[in-house]
């Protein structure tokens, strides 16, 4: 079955340090992959998307992700964390149909 795995349920970083949120997907035909962010009591906001164009994808708020087929990974990074980045992040894949398949989420804490 198609799936995504988020390797860390919680990540804590200091403000100004790099962020790395890890995601692996089950191998299949070239998937569509997305990162969404959910701030407390808010909906799911699209950060970035990969749909088989450039492997390095830039998103909003300074985030980017790199699609690595050899590693079946799509890790999310940001060079310098900001307090406002504290939220839950979901790695999501498109399946063989229109539905989205969500990872379990990574809660990012940013310490001052």
């Amino acid at each position: 079955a198609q799936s995504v795995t988020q390797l860390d349920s919680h990540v804590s970083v200091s403000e100004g340090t790099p962020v790395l949120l890890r995601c692996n997907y089950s191998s299949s035909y070239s998937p569509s992959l997305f990162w969404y962010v959910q701030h407390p009591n808010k909906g799911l906001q699209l950060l970035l998307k990969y749909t088989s164009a450039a492997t390095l994808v830039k998103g909003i708020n300074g985030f980017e992700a790199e699609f690595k087929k050899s590693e079946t990974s799509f890790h999310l990074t940001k060079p310098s964390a900001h307090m406002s980045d504290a939220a839950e992040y979901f790695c999501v894949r498109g399946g063989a149909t229109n539905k989205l398949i969500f990872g379990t989420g990574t809660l990012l804490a940013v310490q001052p």
Partner: protein
Amino acid sequence: EPEVTQTPSHQVTQMGQEVILRCVPISNHLYFYWYRQILGQKVEFLVSFYNNEISEKSEIFDDQFSVERPDGSNFTLKIRSTKLEDSAMYFCASSDQGMRQPQHFGDGTRLSIL
């Protein structure tokens, strides 16, 4: 920027009662979806809707669930006889195209069944 809007933000209902969750998708979008997130669990797909009919549904979407697009702007999810385990956050989403395209989500409706 256009948004998906959901009402109400919080719904409290007695077990066994019917509930209707409402969504206004982005106006030029053609594909509509419902997802739910039970507290502490992952977001799960419920149903997709295109061209006035269900295009896909999950195992969760049994006979007690139904969806409707009653007019050109609203998209509703009805739960006929609610159960305690229906308590969850329900998200509506829409997209302008189908496969391989991102979906735009509303802020969700928190459904609490007592």
